[in-house]
Each structure stands twice: as structure tokens, then as C-alpha cells.
């Protein structure tokens, strides 16, 4: 969690707002738990979980159905201004976690704090301040997009004037202003998804929770939605929690990811951190060396194998394709690239490509699940 520079900065900015003048009890109302250890018997005061302005924090959050443990002692933290990706297969417990965070399902044990409140005890206030895009979101098909949003605005207690202004604003933001007055029955899946995001943004949330926002959308639509999320986080300083089983799609947009398998969080961190932790300590380097002659492949292989740290050399599929080197230990990748460059220079060889290959989240995920969740999967 410490890998995010934003956290420290925001935390230090947010904290120094003590009761500076006048009415001290009024400060109690401001979002989140009071900074000092509270002696008041409030919902926050009773618990052992302090939040200090962290939008989402859970400790030991567990949900058990009759036979199945859907979520198993989950410790999670999402900071303001970051996009956190909750990644896992279908049925890994992502939606259950989200429903517990919204107070729509009671946890069996453990605690959660969302915007400083316990969603199990204070669901209404949590739902007022948290925007939620459900999995395969639906709208009243007979009503237009704008009418659907107006209904949500009314349920949130927005006055008609406020609602009208906010609706125009969010529709503009998600790029649906032109189609806002056609019935949602005519919308494409991607448009519905974007309308869902607009719907979640209506209440001007501090936290945005998106369940599978990119499922069942074409690749271009996915890019649009992820770009939209990025810009929203920049504009509004929200905390965003999104769940997905399409790992590579969300890899680019998430600041941090949590890997979820059979109800357990098997790894948390940035994609690079996770690659380091769950990698098999092998880095991959792509090399394109232009040689001529019949024995080109052999000479190339000899040259590359002579470099220290190179474990294996994989030929390209066709002649001319770059080759992939496995380098061990993983942190030797930089040195190996340097040596290849030097060797190419001294031998007068033409280098057509030389770069390190970033591990995909899919690979990390597979390894993380195999390593940590092996036994858990049998149980599920």
C-alpha cells in the first residue's frame, strides 16, 4: 500500500483540519471518523477500525453462505484518488464484497468502513455517498435516459433544479448528451454501461464502485469507458473500486490491483509489484539481431547464450521475428540488455529491437492463484 505516493500526500493534507474555531461538535459531522480516538458511543467509536479519511477499508471481512465461504477474511484498503482493481474469476467473491461495502448484504464477521461509516449499520448514509454501477446494469426501458436519471436524482433527494443541472453535466461527461432523450430500450450495451456510470455519478459520490464495468462491451467501448474513469478520477478526486475478470483490460487503468481467488485476496499491489512477487524470478527480453549467412541462427544463439544470466533462448516463429530471452534472476534484465548492446556494437551487428517484455496480469494472476489459492480452490 505504501507504493502509492498519493496516499501520503493526501493524508497529510487532509488531516490538519482540527476544530480551529468555535463549535467543535459540528466538526463531528464531517466525513469519516473523527481523527482523535473517539470516546463517544458512535458507530465509528465502538469499532476498532479507524479510517482517518481512507474511503474504503475492511478488516477480516467474511461472508459465509451455508456451505460456501464467499469472502474469507478480506483486508482491503482503497485510497482517495486511486483506481483499485479487484480481479478474480467469476464466483471469486468480488460481487459479494461489493454488496457488503454497500450495506446490501450483511457480513458474517469482520468489519468494513466506507467513507468512515459502517455499511451494515448505516447503509443509507453510505449509499448516499457511494456511487455504484452494478454488474449488467439495467434501466427502465420505456423511459428515456434522462428520465431514468431523474428518477435516481429524486431518490437521492435532489431538488428538481439541482437534478436538471447535474443530469446535464453527467450526461455530457459520459458522452450521452445527444441520445439522452431516446428510450433506454434502444441503447447499446456500451451506452447502457455509460448511462450506468452517469447514474452513479449523479449523487456526486466520494467513492465509485463499479462491478464488471467492461464486460460484454466491444474493445473500443472498453477503451472509452476506461478513459472516462481515468479522467473522472482526475477531475473529482474520487476513490474508485472496480471489479473485473478481464485482467488485461483493466491492467492499464488501475493504480493498484488486488487478486482475488476463492474468497481470498492473494496479492495486492501495483502490477509491477505483483509481477515481482508472483513472477518465477525470470525477466523476458526481446531481441532482434540481424545476421546473414547459413549459420546465422547458431551464431546468434551462441552469442546470446554467452551472456551471463540468460537461461534460455526462444526463437521467433518466423525468420526475422525477434527472439525472446529468459533472464534469471529477474533484476539482471537491465544488465543483460546492456551487454547485448555492447556485443552488437563490438561485433558490428545490426540490432533491430531490444526491449524488456512486461509481464501481463494474466500471467501474474495464473501464478498467484496456483501458488496461493491451490488448496482454497479445492474447498470451493
Amino acid at each position, binding site marked *: 500500500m505504501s507504493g502509492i505516493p498519493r496516499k501520503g500526500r*493526501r493524508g497529510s493534507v487532509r488531516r490538519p483540519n482540527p476544530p480551529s474555531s468555535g463549535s467543535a461538535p459540528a466538526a463531528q*459531522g464531517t466525513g469519516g471518523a473523527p481523527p482523535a480516538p473517539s470516546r463517544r458511543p458512535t458507530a465509528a467509536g465502538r469499532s476498532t477500525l479507524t479510517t482517518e479519511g481512507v474511503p474504503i477499508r475492511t478488516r477480516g471481512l467474511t461472508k459465509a453462505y451455508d456451505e460456501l465461504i464467499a469472502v474469507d477474511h478480506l483486508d482491503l484498503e482503497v485510497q482517495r484518488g486511486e483506481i483499485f482493481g479487484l480481479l478474480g474469476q467469476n464466483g471469486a467473491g468480488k460481487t459479494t464484497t461489493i*454488496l457488503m461495502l*454497500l450495506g446490501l448484504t450483511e457480513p458474517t464477521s469482520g468489519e468494513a468502513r466506507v467513507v468512515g461509516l459502517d455499511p451494515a449499520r448505516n447503509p*443509507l448514509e453510505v449509499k448516499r455517498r457511494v456511487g*455504484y454501477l452494478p454488474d449488467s446494469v439495467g434501466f*427502465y426501458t420505456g423511459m428515456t435516459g434522462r428520465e431514468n436519471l431523474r428518477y435516481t436524482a*429524486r431518490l437521492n433527494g435532489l431538488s428538481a433544479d439541482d437534478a436538471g443541472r447535474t443530469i446535464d453535466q453527467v450526461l455530457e461527461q459520459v458522452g450521452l448528451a445527444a441520445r439522452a432523450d431516446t428510450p433506454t430500450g434502444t441503447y447499446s450495451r456500451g451506452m447502457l454501461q455509460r448511462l*450506468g456510470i452517469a447514474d452513479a455519478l449523479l449523487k456526486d459520490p466520494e467513492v465509485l464502485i463499479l462491478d464488471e464495468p467492461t464486460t460484454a462491451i466491444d474493445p473500443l467501448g472498453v477503451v472509452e469507458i476506461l478513459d472516462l474513469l481515468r479522467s473522472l478520477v482526475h477531475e473529482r*478526486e474520487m476513490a474508485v473500486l472496480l471489479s473485473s475478470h478481464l485482467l488485461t483490460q483493466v491492467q492499464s487503468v488501475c493504480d493498484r490491483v488486488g487478486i482475488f481467488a476463492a474468497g481470498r485476496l492473494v496479492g495486492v499491489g501495483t502490477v509491477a509489484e505483483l509481477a515481482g512477487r508472483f513472477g518465477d524470478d525470470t525477466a523476458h527480453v526481446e531481441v532482434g539481431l540481424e545476421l546473414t549467412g547459413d549459420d546465422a541462427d547458431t551464431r546468434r544463439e551462441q552469442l546470446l547464450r554467452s551472456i551471463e544470466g540468460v537461461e534460455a533462448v526462444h526463437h521467433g516463429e518466423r525468420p526475422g521475428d525477434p527472439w525472446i530471452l529468459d533472464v534469471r534472476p529477474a533484476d539482471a534484465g537491465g544488465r543483460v540488455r546492456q551487454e547485448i548492446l555492447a556485443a552488437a556494437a563490438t561485433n558490428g551487428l545490426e540490432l533491430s529491437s531490444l526491449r524488456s517484455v512486461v509481464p501481463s496480469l494474466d500471467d501474474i494472476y495464473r501464478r498467484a492463484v496456483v501458488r496461493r489459492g491451490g488448496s482454497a480452490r479445492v474447498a470451493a
Partner: protein
Amino acid sequence: MTTVAAEATTAQPVARDLRVPRHGWLVIARKEFGDHILSARFLVLVLVVGLAAIVPLFLAANQLRDQASQTSGASAIFLALFTLGSEQVAILRVDAFVGIVAPLLGIAFAFDAVNGERSDGTLPRLMSQPIHRDDVINGKFVAGLAVIALVLAAVLLLISGIGIFRLGIIPTVSEVIRLIVWYVVTLAYVSFWLALGLLLSVAVRRAATSALIGFGLWILVTVFGGLIVGLIGGLIAPSAGGLEEQIASAQTQQAINHILPHTLYREATTSILFPFDQVTAAISGVGSFTPTSIDQLGQATDQRRITSLLSLDQSLLLVWPQIVGLIALTVICFAVAYVLFMRQEVRA
């Protein structure tokens, strides 16, 4: 990032706390009411109810007109507009017809209330708004009841209007009050079926299935109600044997009968709309006395020499248990629906 931004973010929650949506159910009810009014099912039901109310009214009006001389002295002549009709087909009477159609209205406006939202994928979105869970059920119930109240009021006023302007029958104050009470009892009866429809929409995942079950129950209770009561009563207390056993059996059957909303409603209607003394009816040997023809109405008037019309307050006293029974049944259905819905998972 700057201090200004930080101040803005910490200041926001205070402003937010001020906008507290108090009446989530009202917002939902308003939206559902609008949906119902514009829906195709509303149009169809209004047409059916309207037509079916006009036909018996026509029959009643003809009877009244034909024998105007005989009926001039009859009491409660305005109520006859609602209680007279075809001598051959019992259903062609306004009161009988409303008794049969009311459950249909209740189920039609509630059978897909919750499972419809579920299958449309709107339920999770609705539940993630700052409303209580019961706001959804309450709002939908109120909206359904409001729509039905509107339709029924329209029908009653239509019939009354035709009675007053075309036939020149002016209702007395007590008749007006009786009609209003009957309207309220009918709404209570509709409420029961509405609550039952809601219960089905919560318990059954598919709207089509819950509609089928609802209409099935309606036919079962309305058409085969007596048969079933006889069967169950026979099982609990067989009527074979001596006089005491027969009495016990009859009492059991009556007790079971009084759990059925259909019976409760019919009894309440009889007491309110047929203000002729039940004792008189018993003497004349008609059983539960419901005059279906003008002759019988005349008979009843003749027998006033023995007993007079049941007064309004006595009528009300008579139907009180039935009204309470109907409301109790409604509350039970509602409570079960409520508990089920609270325990259900939100996800689709």
C-alpha cells in the same frame, strides 16, 4: 491537490448531510403510478371494467323502469342500481362483478412488482440508492392501490351519475354513505390481492410464473372456494353421525369460510348493499337474502311491516368483523412479502 481542493473535499460531506431524502417510498410510488397509468394493462382493465359495469347497469335500469310503479315505494332504490341485474346470469350485477374483478385488478398491478425489476436488472441499481428496502414494497403497494382506487371510483361515479341523470333516482344520505363504505371495503379486498401479488412477485423469480400462480389462486378461491371449504371441513370434522356432530361440522366449515377473503367480502357487501333485515330474509326462506329481481325487492318492501330496514349504524356494526378480517389477511401477506424481501439477495 492544493489546500483549496482539500478544503473543498472535506467541506462536501457537511452539505451532503443536509439533503436527506425522507420519503423514498413516495418517490417510488409516484413513478410506479405514472408507469401504471400509461401502461397497456391499465388501458385494457379500464375498458373491461367499464364495459362490464355498463352492461349490468343497463339491465338494472331496464328492470327499474319497467316496474317503476311497483318500486316507487321501495326503500334503498338507489342501491338497487348496483345490486340488480340479470336474473339468469348472476355475474351481471355490479356488486357481484366487482367482487370477481377486484382480485384480478390487485394481482394485475402487483404480480411483477419486484421480480420485474429483478429481471430488468434495475433492482440492484434501485437498492443502491439511499432508500430503505421496504420503501420499494411500500411504494409499489401504494401506487397499485391508488390506480385501482381511481378505476373503481370512476366506475362507481359513472354508475351513480347515470342513475341520477338518466333515471332520475336521487340517493339518500344513508345510501351515499353505504356506497362509500362499500367502496372502502372493496379497496380492502383489493389490498389483500395486491399484497398477495406483491408476495408472489417477491417469492417467485419469474413474472410469468407469479402471474399464473396469482390467477390460479384467484380462480381456486372464487370458483372452487365452497368446494374446498367443504372438503377441509369434512376432513377436520366429518358431518356423519348425530345432530351434534353435524352442528360441529357446520361450525368448522363456517370458521374456515371466514378465513377466505372471498367470503369476508361477500358477507360485507351483502350487509352494506342489501340493508334488508337478515331476520326477514331467514323467515322468507331465501337463505342469505339477495334480491335479484324486482319482485323480490317488492317482497322485501312488503315485509317491512314485520321488520324494518337495517339501519346504517347496524349495518356497519355487522360488517366490522369482516373488514378487520380483510385487513388482517392483507397485513399477513404484506408481512411475509416484507420478510422475504429483506432476506433476499440483491444480486440478479
